[in-house]
């Protein structure tokens, strides 16, 4: 039974990360559309922010499977 609950926890963490990264991507697209000349800076910062959000989700997933 613990296995099933851990899988549910991992799934919830992924929902959170999905919403977070989705927002980052949407805002970055908007920003690029408004200022196409800043595309390089925006892309680099977008990847950085996505990595930070993903980090939180990965901690949750790994704790769910190992904990």
């Amino acid at each position: 039974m613990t296995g099933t609950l851990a899988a549910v926890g991992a799934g919830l963490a992924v929902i959170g990360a999905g919403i977070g990264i989705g927002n980052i991507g949407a805002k970055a697209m908007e920003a690029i559309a408004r200022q196409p000349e800043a595309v390089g800076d925006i892309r680099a910062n977008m990847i950085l922010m996505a990595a930070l959000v993903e980090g939180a989700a990965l901690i949750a997933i790994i704790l769910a499977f190992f904990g």
Partner: protein
Amino acid sequence: MRKLSLSFLCIICISVFAFSQAHQDDHGHDDHAEQTGHTDDHGHGNECGYVEADVFNPQKVAFHHISDQNIYSIGPFSFPLPCILKSDTGLDMFSSGKFKADYHGTGEYAYNDYVLFEGSVRRIVKADEFPDGLVELGKYKLYVREIEMDNGKKKDIVHLCYKGEEWLCDSKSYADAGFLGGGTTSFYDFSITKNVMTMILVFLFLGWALIGTANAYKKREGMAPKGMQGFMESIFVFIQDEVAKPFLGPKWEKYISLLMALFFFILGLNLFGQIPFLGGSNVTGNISFTLIIAVIAFLVTNISGNKHYWEHVAWMPGIPAPLKIFIITPVEIMGLFIKPLTLMLRLFGNIAAGHMVIIIFVGLIFIFGQNGANPVAGWGTAVGSTILTLFMMAIELLVAFIQAFVFTILTASYIGTAIEDHHHEEAH
């Protein structure tokens, strides 16, 4: 249109190859079963009453494929690697070829109380009573049995069946000293494993490529870059201009060699693991490896941290004292350790998950084909799962670059905050 049909043909060919491999595997099992003679229709076993269920277990296969091993197997061939093992009886150095590993990486011989189970070396717990030297075991003598532990939890323990007796085997020796649940063992494994071998290969390749590039600048001074030099220069300048200069400020030159080393080593290992049919080494998806590079990033950050950095950690200026004592300082101190922890887990999680997803997609063939009992479903799934695997591999190629870049950029930003000169025009 012609291109499309050509690629479709390719996919069909690969699927046929994959499925015929699966079929071969199945026949192999039947042959083994006949040889041992201790089996019924459902699997194979040994005289200690153990019968292996011949059911495909995708979870076991996936975890086996991402784990480190003492043999390097490429397809049906397995290459021996040097074993360096230390126990209370002394240091043992020998080739893992002595174990005569079978298709699954399980050894048919024991050597000096060590056995090889699914690619990793284990030691017999009652080593004093077991005969020393090379001992022939035979097929299917090593197996996993679930044992109830003292604390009531169930744990999978490897057993050896030798002359009708059951012998308990130790766990794998982990570099994390049992911290991640492996438990302590009676021996240390310092072997050149598959992951270490991959690191050496990637190190040699990067040495060749980067020293060659450096020499090309001397030889071809004033001329346009050519070949490998041109490829390396574009990556090098990208890291220098997009990562090092904006994050590290005027002192970027001091840390550029660390950042380049991290980027190229992680990228090289990520890409080497992506090459199909070459062992699929999973070095950056191994938590011990990512732990070490995260510790290096942590040490460099904190050793190069200046007065302002430590002031902001210990006693953030411009905030009431009670708030500092109860909230800000504990959180900042936790943050010091959470930063390298996320670095470690991000790289590990991404690469290990990528390797597992590919294995699971291949495993779908066996799940739907019911181990060859239902060939039509197996053939059908083989086409679909090959397309999915190719798609996943394309994504993983992207992830290999992104994760190497993210690790470098985050390390640069952590070092950047530690060495930044603060100008206190206004209170925080």
